């Protein structure tokens, strides 16, 4: 049984990790993060150490961005981290700045979380008073870190790192071509590290306890612990921290989902729908990955309505730049609505599956590429429910 962990929300003396990091060379900081096998906690799972190393290698002044644009339906763990442990995240950004050679940073806060702004900025001021950020970090004359908080405006797509940077630059918030990657050419052309809130929250612990300690949790490929925000048909919804490798069945037991659980949506609208056949699979990068969103559906729920809800979401949130996603989301929704009117058929499903393939192969960014995930998994496991909607 995977262990319940308490790292992200645990207390940490402000400054302890930063002081230790500043005493190391930037390369050593990066080495620890690489060694820990920490991977991004926002959903994409890119190795954090590699990201930091890539930014440092550019040899130019860099920029650190905290991606607090938590937007995947069913994900509410970054909100809690910012409510309770913003200081840890901010200190982590300073550690990153030290490692990659940044003197500027931003917290890009989801527009819908604007109510957190004042408190986070209060925390920023407090930490500046402690010298953990600001013009002279820990009294150093050669290390300054100017941190600002910027609000998003309610666009899911701005959780994608290049769209986030686009938005920070006062543009529309449309994803950009990669390469160049943000670590090569990001905010205003600077090497830019964009990390998820949870990812950042883990770094100070890794600095203090070491890479090996972190690898002790989780699996060989998916090191460490993960926050899950669980909602839906269960008696104990909420935020949980488990080591990677926990199986769906174990998680369902923990949140007291009933025996009538039909499906679990793992990874939100852009994730995978797991049916009972999948419940022994592990939640991990090598199993079924998630940025944290876990939604439980019992027998009374219509998987058609679930699917429709997800596709409506994507059609609303598509930035509209590239053909497969912009047009595909609309055609997909139109196709799904046919079932509601009794005009659906196997042919419609097959046409939509071909459309899904095009979207997953040819969309410009991860948004369009993942739209088909829920469609394909729900259709493959609950085809009858769709046909008889």
């Amino acid at each position, binding site marked *: 049984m995977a262990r319940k962990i308490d790292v992200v929300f645990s207390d940490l003396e402000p400054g302890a990790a930063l002081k230790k990091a500043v005493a190391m060379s930037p390369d050593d900081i990066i080495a620890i993060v690489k060694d820990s096998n920490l991977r991004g906690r926002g959903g994409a799972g890119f190795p954090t150490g590699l990201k930091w190393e890539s930014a440092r290698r550019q040899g130019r002044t860099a920029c650190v961005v905290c991606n607090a644009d938590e937007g995947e339906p069913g994900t509410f763990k970054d909100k809690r981290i910012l409510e309770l442990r913003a200081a840890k995240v901010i200190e982590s950004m300073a550690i990153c700045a030290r490692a990659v050679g940044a003197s500027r940073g931003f917290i890009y806060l989801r527009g819908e979380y604007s109510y957190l702004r004042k408190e986070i900025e209060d925390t920023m001021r407090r930490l500046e008073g402690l010298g953990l950020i600001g013009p002279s970090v820990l009294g150093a004359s050669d290390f300054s870190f100017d941190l600002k908080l910027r609000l998003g405006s309610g666009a899911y797509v701005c959780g994608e790192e290049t769209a986030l940077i686009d938005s920070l630059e006062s543009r529309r918030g449309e994803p950009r071509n990669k390469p160049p990657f943000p670590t090569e050419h990001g905010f205003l052309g600077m090497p830019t590290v964009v990390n998820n809130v949870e990812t950042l929250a883990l770094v100070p612990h890794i600095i203090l306890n070491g890479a090996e300690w972190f690898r002790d949790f989780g699996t060989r490929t998916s090191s460490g612990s993960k926050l899950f925000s669980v909602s839906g048909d269960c008696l104990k919804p909420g935020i949980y921290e488990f080591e990677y490798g926990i199986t769906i069945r174990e998680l369902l037991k923990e949140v007291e989902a009933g025996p009538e659980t039909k499906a679990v949506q793992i990874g939100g609208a852009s994730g995978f729908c797991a049916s009972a056949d999948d419940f022994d699979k592990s939640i991990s990068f090598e199993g079924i990955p998630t940025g944290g969103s876990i939604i439980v559906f019992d027998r009374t729920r219509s998987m058609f309505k679930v699917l429709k809800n997800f596709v409506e979401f994507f059609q609303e949130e598509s930035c509209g730049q590239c053909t497969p996603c912009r047009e595909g989301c609309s055609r997909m929704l139109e196709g799904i609505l046919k079932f509601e009117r009794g005009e659906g058929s196997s042919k419609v499903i097959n046409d939509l599956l071909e459309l899904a393939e095009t979207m997953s192969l*040819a969309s410009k960014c991860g948004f369009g590429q993942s739209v088909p995930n829920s469609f394909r998994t729900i259709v493959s496991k609950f085809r009858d429910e769709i046909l008889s909607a």
Partner: protein
Amino acid sequence: MKELNVTLNGVAYRVKEGSTILELCRREGIHVPTLCDHPDLHTKGICRICVVEVKGMRTLQASCSTPVTEGMDINTTGDKVRRTRKTIVELLLANHYTDCTVCPKNLSCELQRLADEYGLTELRWKERRERTVARDLSSTVFVRDNNKCVLCQRCIRACADLQGVGALANLWKGDRTIIGSAFNRPIAEIVCINCGQCVAHCPTGALHERPAGDAVWKAIDDPSKIVVVQTAPAIRAALGEEFGYPPGTRVTGKMATALKMMGFDYVFDTQFAADLTIIEEAHELLGRLKAAIVDKSDVALPMTTSCSPGWIKFQEHFFPELLPNVSSCKSPQQMFGALLKTWWAGKRGIDPDKIVSVSVMPCTAKKYEAARPEMGRDGVKDVDFAITTRELATMIKQAGIDLTNLPDGSFDDPLGESTGAATIFAATGGVMEAALRTAYEVVTGREVPFAHLDIAPVRGMEGVREASILIEKVKPEFSWLEGVVLKVLVAHGTANAKTVMTAVKEGRLQAHFIEIMTCPGGCLGGGGQPLPVTPEKRRARARAIYAEDGDFKIRKSHENLAVAHIYSDFLGEPNSHKAHELLHTKYTARGRY
């Protein structure tokens, strides 16, 4: 620059690091369809039609925006690519208002070409048979029809990057995205300068000029009207492209014949008025130089040219404080029209009301210029209709004329006589070169010190070009110019104009005379020219223009005898009161918003 080893469709190639997959394919003649890609514009990678398969990558890669890497293994065909591209074309058509048979882009539309290329015989998603978004018909120059837009953003990039105007931008999001105008206001009410570069870069019928062909036919068919046509220099070097000739083919004689066959009563040449413009403008420049050097008065220098109406509106919006620098000369189109309806009408005893003055221009902004309130008198417009090269081609075909099989004809007298200096107006640097050929000789009595009168420093396609000419051994009445180094500047594309004029405004640039052409390449790359436009085509048209200049016996505007006659018979001296009344104009400061 490092070279990488890459495999493309099973064949090994070496390619420079930093190249994209598309650049390699084009180099090797391997076909990859594109839509949002354009040689004039920076890469967007949004249409996704150019996707190719790269071994080891789960998703297909857009070849336009993917740099090659060492050992990359690329496949431009294969079933995944084929199915994906076909689906993308179907998706574009599903949101496209289709009325091909009556669309100005019928048979030249890039979306049609893709549908043909992918052999579509049925559409899984029905195409639209009605307009769901209102067209923007506010402009007298061009029409915006978002119902046919494929959101390739070529117009946005052309307007913002090539032209530095930024009148167009994406509005809203997702499938509600439209290409809108600044503040979502009608395009005629904002900073749009009418240059038509958006039209010139649009792959479908979403953007096209407001056609005036039917109105011109009506005039031609009306026996009570005398219909007179003038053609700009740029037409003769590009019209042939609409009839299958390779870019850079000169069809001057055939064009004159076609115009006569179409039923125009008189076929004149804008080039006549271009020579006239040079006389007026060269003397205006000398006047300003004298005021500055001799009288030490606060005259506006550098002087900038004024024949490009897109540029005029650009100045009016973006640099209204520099309007005094603009030459007061009208453009050749408008000088022609003014003389036509006064001097020529008088000579012929024709009532100006009966004259319908038509111009054929490579330009969309000329439609706006012709309608400017300053351009006429007593309710009579100097130019009634300005049509584009494309519109003329359509009219020639409508008349059942095959341009390729026509004998060479000639322009009518007296407003058909011109020189090589007039022809080069079509190319960026041409107005400057023509002006120098005259000004230098007026001042020194000698020809410009360049072999064959070809002033190479002002020629070429770089965005901003400079030249300095030492004025020495001058005629006695120009002694004040002895030893002066005349500094001139040439810029094309209003984004480059913005750079130049900002430098002027901030006092960072010293020059006496600046030529600005709105469109990249000058008029030969104008918004009304045959499509599609590419840098290569512009260079080919430029070669044709300079070749035409070289073939003229007379290549200096002041040696145009018909023009000289207009002065002795009617205008008096250059910049005379009468010349000012008819051939000079005023400008209007306009806001940014």
